[in-house]
């Protein structure tokens, strides 16, 4: 398996470590139901079969956290970008 790192280019997957679903928003700690929201944020996942967005760390590379678009049914990877919009902007 190879993962395209937006900074390093396509690299072997063994250089990366996997975290999980991307795009989760850390809840507002001051919300009245913050505790319940944090519970969902920590534990509840879509576990989608198909196209997913995942967080990977290029641990043995540039140490970027990246969002990889991967189809869990085919393993096809159709895109990857920096998780941080600031880094994305700086890279352009």
């Amino acid at each position: 398996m190879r993962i395209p790192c937006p900074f390093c280019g396509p690299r072997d997957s063994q250089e990366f470590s996997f975290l999980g679903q991307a795009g989760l928003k850390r809840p507002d700690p001051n919300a009245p139901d913050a505790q319940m929201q944090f519970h969902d944020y920590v534990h509840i996942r879509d576990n989608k079969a198909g196209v997913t967005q995942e967080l990977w760390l290029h641990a043995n590379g540039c140490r970027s956290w990246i969002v990889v678009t991967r189809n869990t049914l085919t393993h096809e990877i159709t895109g990857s970008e920096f998780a941080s919009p600031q880094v994305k902007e700086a890279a352009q």
Partner: protein
Amino acid sequence: MSQLHRLSSGGLIDRAKPLSFKFDGKTYQGFAGDTLASALLANDVQLVARSFKYHRPRGILTAGSEEPNALVELRQGARREPNVRATTAELYDGLIAQSQNRWPSLYFDFGAVNSLLSPFFAAGFYYKTFMWPTAFWEKVYEPLIRRAAGLGKPPVGDDPDTYEKAFAHCDLLVIGAGPAGLAAALAAGRSGARVILADEGPMLGGRLLSDRRIIGNQSGPDWVKATEAELASLPNVRIMPRTTIFGIYDHGVYGALERVNDHVATPPAHEPRQRAYRIYAKRAVLAAGAIERPHVFGNNDRPGVMLGLAMRSYINRYAVVPTKRVAIFTSSDEGYATAHDLIAAGASVQAIIDTRADATISAPNDIPHFKGARILRVLGNKQVQGVEIELKDGAIRILDCDGVAMSNGWNPAVHLTCHLGGRPVWDDKTNAFLPGNVPAGLSVAGAAQGHFGLKETLADGLRLGASIVDELGFKASGITTPDTDPESLAHTPLWRVKTSKGKCFVDFQHDVTDTDIELANREGFRSVEHMKRYTTLGMATDQGKTANISGLAILGEASGRKMAEVGTTIFRPPYTPVALGALAGHHVHKGFRPTRLTPSHQWAEEQGAVFMETGLWLRAQYFPKTKNESWLDAMIREVEITRSKVGVCDVSTLGKINLQGKDVGTFLDRVYTGTFSTLPVGKVRYGLMMREDGFVQDDGTTSRLSDNHWLMTTTTAGAGKVMAHLEFCHQVLWPELDIAFTSVTEQWAQYSIAGPHSRDVLIKLVDPQHGISNEAFPYMACGAITICNGIPARLFRISFSGEMAYEIGVSNRYGDALIRAIMDAGKEFGITPYGLEALSTMRIEKGHVAGSELNGQTTPRDLGLIKIVSQKKDCIGKHMSERPAMLAPDRPILVGLKPKNPKSKLTGGAHFLDKGAKPSLENDLGHMMSVAYSPMLKSWIGLGIVKRGRERIGETIRAVDFVRGTEFEVEICDPVFFDPEGVRIRG
């Protein structure tokens, strides 16, 4: 007499290089270019193995990696390798091989009695017989089965050889160097594209080495030689013989195993035995050829029964006539090619038994030719002695022969096309499963695609090679398909001889017969996947390369379904077995776990330190004064001196992270439970870090060196995880924060100087312009200083031991010099170095938490540290750690434990029970986490978590350790055993 079955001329062997080898203790001769199988056959050794289940005598069925029968143990001792296919093992001088799965000898095998018990060994035998009682499985059934039905024995001792991992990149990977592969590589190579051509064998050419064919005006082997020479002359082409592509993985990654030195007795110095590659290829052509199908008839497993192409291969490539009086059993015109080659080699063809009544091809010379006939069974036990045949009109005949050559059509080697989930599709025209949905980037050429004729195979390879490189932006040119001699490929497979007598084997390696498959069908295992698992068809080391398709056909016949309806099981990596050593490569022993040494390591060694592993680090455990001083005595001495005078400890292994930027304070407030943004410059604060799920993940101190410059320390073990966590927090959660950070663990050597005289020692080292009096540099102060006349250093007034203590950091290249300078300066105060044992004891005496307590299952509240969770702000993990159950009073909490008898040696992991309570989950009060012998209290002490522990201080409970068989009464106490007011630390 030697090599009676060797022809006097011809073949691709080197008669100028005779080789001597041993099989089962007997010495034989062969030639360079032989395999073990061809050399054994040259010496008329037909019986080479016993079968897996029935221990039936077995010979050599094939001439390639699909061999199910001829498995041997190669080499001896630590280099012994079981289940080596004699058909692929290259002969070398001094080769030693043993037959396996027999006792006491191959010729007389006691286990053959299984054959008489065969009604009990039918399909599903294991499931039905060894069901229960369950307790019998481990002690009785499994050892019994293993002894009776084992394959070879594993080697003894560590593998003395080395293995490598390697990587390769190319535009086009060609898998297999038969006619299709060579043609594809040539077309692509001439365009300038980067090509890798890999073949499992030592010589390129594939089938062209086995058959007598003409290409253009050259013989097959000559065309191969010319093509190989041209490929070798192209700098963009890499030829990899002895290399099996064993698996296809996602995104154009191919697993390859190069057998670098399997063809010699021992690898030359500094060379590996095998090398496992990851090949990254933009495109690939699978030109793996096809595997001939055996017939299924009575006793078709007797030594002397061989596939037709294998027979031709031994004659033409190895100049060996395997057997001299051969019956040809064929459902294909190719059986007649075998007859011609046998005659040309001077052997006798006793008859051609063609299962096709309508065969149009004629037999050579005046060989008896039976159309529409079939072999009912083979006569003979350890060697074919004849065949019983049924003629078209039903007449039975006995035919004298010592060998049978079978040709029943071809199974394309589609294995690799299945590795990413592809399913082969049955094709009625070619009577074969052809590649279905193949992996992205892979194309299939030649016989693997069902194109069995030589000319179409060559055309296929050239066309694909050229079109692929064109698509990749190269330009192929000058490609014309050469002419080939005529060939006749007509065939109508016969899946089994139904009127057979005796056992008809489908899977030779797993001893699965046609009746096993019928039984599976009768018992309802009609899906191919169920039948496979019930009968174990195709589940041996050869993955049923010669067996599966016949098995499916018989299942189809038994269940009244067509081949296309039955479908097929799919193949998984590896194509042929791969040694774990090759996959591990050099990542073994210290290559797997390199050792990290601190800057003071050499100095500590000089002091006679005893080291221990903490993660990858080697750290001094204690410094014995004499050879006989025990760890306990040394630790007591080191603690007593440190607490009464002064001690020094290397703490360089702690993780260190350098943080800079104007938002570091805000960032730290969010990742630590406490508030850091208010920390003044020149101060240090203790920090506790949670995961978002509310459990503590690490602790340490963070210092503010200047407004925008901070230094964090982590635990030794947590350094890597904390770094990744902080990167996640910054890059994913709060990218808007203006911070940057990097690990500086290895850049700094750091020593803790602790004890009442610590400042006295330090004053001698620190340059005089830096005031370090108690007032100028109080507890929790930090700052940049210089030492020893201008060497930059950092000083932190922090303490893990509870004594007045300083940590001093210097660039790691000064680490060795600094420890020596500290020891010199401390001499007059009686300084001692101390190791991890003393460090740990002193922190337990002070009730400080460390690794055993920060085990990923404790919250700040559980550790008694709720007071350092700020209630004025959010931080990672705060909400989750405050869910009602996490704060329930019943949840175990950290306390100290003191045994009633100070000599009772407490143990970590012991569980706590009330007096009189039975050991049960409900009665469990918690467990001991860390223990030490306290020189200050002259007693063993411990830290642990106890339900309602803080409310029960002073009460007595039991510490029960079933693993070590101890039970002690312990008193619950405050976790701070020593100097609870913290007087000493402030100096």
